[in-house]
């Protein structure tokens, strides 16, 4: 190995009974990086986190933290920090006692415990709560204390298990900002588990998208959004319009295809090769589709590499910074997101033309249903 990583997972596999919950998981995390495990429930993200924490042992593969193999090492000997979804503050201890607990176990001197507890409570901006009990705190305060408790031991790795999902929306945004700031300031290597894609995008340097125990894609938030590696990633991250289609031909830049409803599209070529007759799925993000009034001045002529279809506006939803328009085109229902403009407004029932560039359509082999 030329480069040293803080966390290395090599071909981790875990079964519960006959179901494989984590399958061949490989990952290297650099020092100071924040990596998020993202996926729907049951995708194996929490299981993997529990294996990192030492609550579960992998059936196969090696797990290395700071260069030391961790297989068989119990949780209490791994020197980790962890924040749980349910806060998990010890109800019979005050805030100060909760935060000090890990230091006490490490036999740190009393005076040093006091200074470090005070310092970390300053960092999470709750220095005045030392003598309160967890019951007397709000959800957001509890989670800050839990973060303080996890950080005070200066762990080699910080594990965050859906730490924000028990909080309400406003608090969630506030706290995720705070966690990101802390993570960057302290520079602690962090693994973050969530099912919330926005949270994942916001928090992470890299995202690992998981489904059914398999890694679908590892990449920066931008990669994940713009260049989804699989149909699952495209559907799971962000909004997508999906079409079932068959390859009918292509040139060096594009594939030509025909949807099951009979429309013809072109889509950009990627690394994958298809033959005529291959069944594929095509995805286009709603914000890449432009919407025009039929017969308007701006109506553009058909050009190569541009797909265009006509349809009728079914439903308009004003969502603040943008408008979501549901358009019925033949038997397709297509979602379009367009910037709100007071000049061009659409009405429900109005005929419209939809168009998007071929390079903004992603095609994947058809998923087995």
């Amino acid at each position: 190995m030329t480069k040293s990583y803080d966390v290395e997972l090599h071909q981790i596999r875990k079964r519960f009974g006959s179901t494989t919950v984590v399958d061949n998981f490989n990952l290297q995390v650099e020092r100071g990086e924040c990596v998020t495990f993202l996926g729907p429930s049951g995708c194996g993200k929490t299981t993997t986190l529990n294996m990192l924490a030492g609550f579960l042992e992998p059936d196969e593969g090696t797990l290395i933290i700071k260069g030391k193999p961790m297989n068989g090492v119990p949780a209490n000997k791994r020197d980790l920090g962890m924040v749980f979804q349910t806060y998990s503050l010890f109800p019979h201890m005050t805030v100060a006692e909760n935060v000090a607990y890990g230091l006490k176990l490490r036999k740190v001197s009393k005076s040093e415990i006091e200074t470090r507890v005070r310092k970390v409570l300053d960092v999470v901006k709750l220095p005045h709560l030392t003598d309160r009990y967890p019951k007397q705190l709000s959800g957001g305060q509890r989670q800050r204390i839990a973060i303080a408790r996890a950080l005070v031991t200066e762990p080699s790795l910080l594990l965050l298990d859906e730490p924000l999902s028990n909080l309400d929306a406003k608090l969630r945004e506030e706290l995720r900002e705070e966690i990101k700031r802390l993570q960057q300031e302290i520079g602690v290597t962090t693994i973050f588990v969530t099912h919330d894609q926005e949270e994942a995008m916001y928090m992470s340097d890299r995202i690992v998208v998981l489904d059914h125990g398999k890694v679908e894609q590892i990449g920066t938030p931008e990669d994940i959004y713009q260049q989804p590696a699989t149909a699952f990633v495209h559907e799971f991250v962000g909004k997508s319009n999906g079409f079932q289609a068959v390859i009918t031909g292509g040139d060096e830049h594009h594939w030509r295809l025909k949807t099951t409803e009979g429309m013809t599209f072109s889509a950009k070529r990627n690394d994958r090769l298809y033959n005529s007759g291959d069944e594929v799925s095509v995805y286009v993000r709603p914000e890449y589709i432009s919407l025009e009034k039929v017969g308007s001045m701006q109506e553009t002529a058909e050009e190569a590499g541009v797909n265009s279809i006509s349809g009728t506006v079914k439903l308009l939803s004003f969502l603040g910074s943008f408008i979501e328009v549901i358009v019925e085109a033949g038997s397709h229902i297509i979602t379009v997101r367009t910037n709100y403009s007071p000049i061009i407004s659409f009405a429900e029932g109005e005929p419209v033309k939809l168009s998007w560039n071929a390079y903004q359509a992603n095609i994947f082999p058809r998923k087995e249903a």
Partner: protein
Amino acid sequence: MPQLKRSKGLIAMLLLVPGLIIILGVFVLPMIYMLMISLREDMGRGAWTLVSYAHLFQDSYYLEILWRTVKLSLYTVVVCLLLGYPVAMYMAQAAPKMRGLITFLILSPHLISVVIRNFGWVVILGDDGFINNTLMSLGIISGPLRLLYNELGVVIGLTDSLIVYMVLAISTSLYAIDSSLYKAAGILGASRTKQFFSITLPLSLPGIFAGTTLVFSLAMSSFVTPALMGGTSVKVLPVLAYEQMMASLDWSLGAAIAFLLLGSTILLVTIFTRLVETKRYKEVFSS
């Protein structure tokens, strides 16, 4: 991981060992040994025999005692049900604080020895006790009523100590009734009485049945109350078993009486359960 799982099972077993030793050594083995003694000659070591049981079933003296035990237990169940149901209903309607107070008042005497409670009843029911003195001073009666050392005294004592089980069993099932059912019934035009018979009573059947079987089995095996409040004239099976064990020292007969008591209780409870748990009842209440 396989080791982890095995070690977890091992820890569990280690933690369970002391408890299981007590249960096996002081309960399961003794029960088996007692069965042997009742079924074999020479303190469980000789030939197999049913002579102790035959003795019990051939002598009308024992059967009479069995019948008296069953009869007194049934009386107790009926009294507990008639008095306990209204209490449970009252608790179901009461505010939480009141409910807590009643629960406390009927539960806490239960934590004081039955010997002492029975003594209290002697003071209340005796010839020179509270009731007789009150009635005589009011001139309602001229001589003391016999309230103690007969079947009445035993039923009073048993009701006092067992009604708590009936009340708790029924109130638990009453608490579980969705109050919107009464609104629905009221809107449909059902009167209070009608609501009681079409909602409250049928939905509290599980509580009634649980309370009935519990009170019945506890009454069948109670020893102290019949001994202290029934006197020598109201002999029941547990008292008989005690006499056989400690006075007559006929241990194989004592063991047989113990099993007669256990067996008849289980048999009667099973018959009761079979009778009341109709197909429809099971469909409604099986979880």
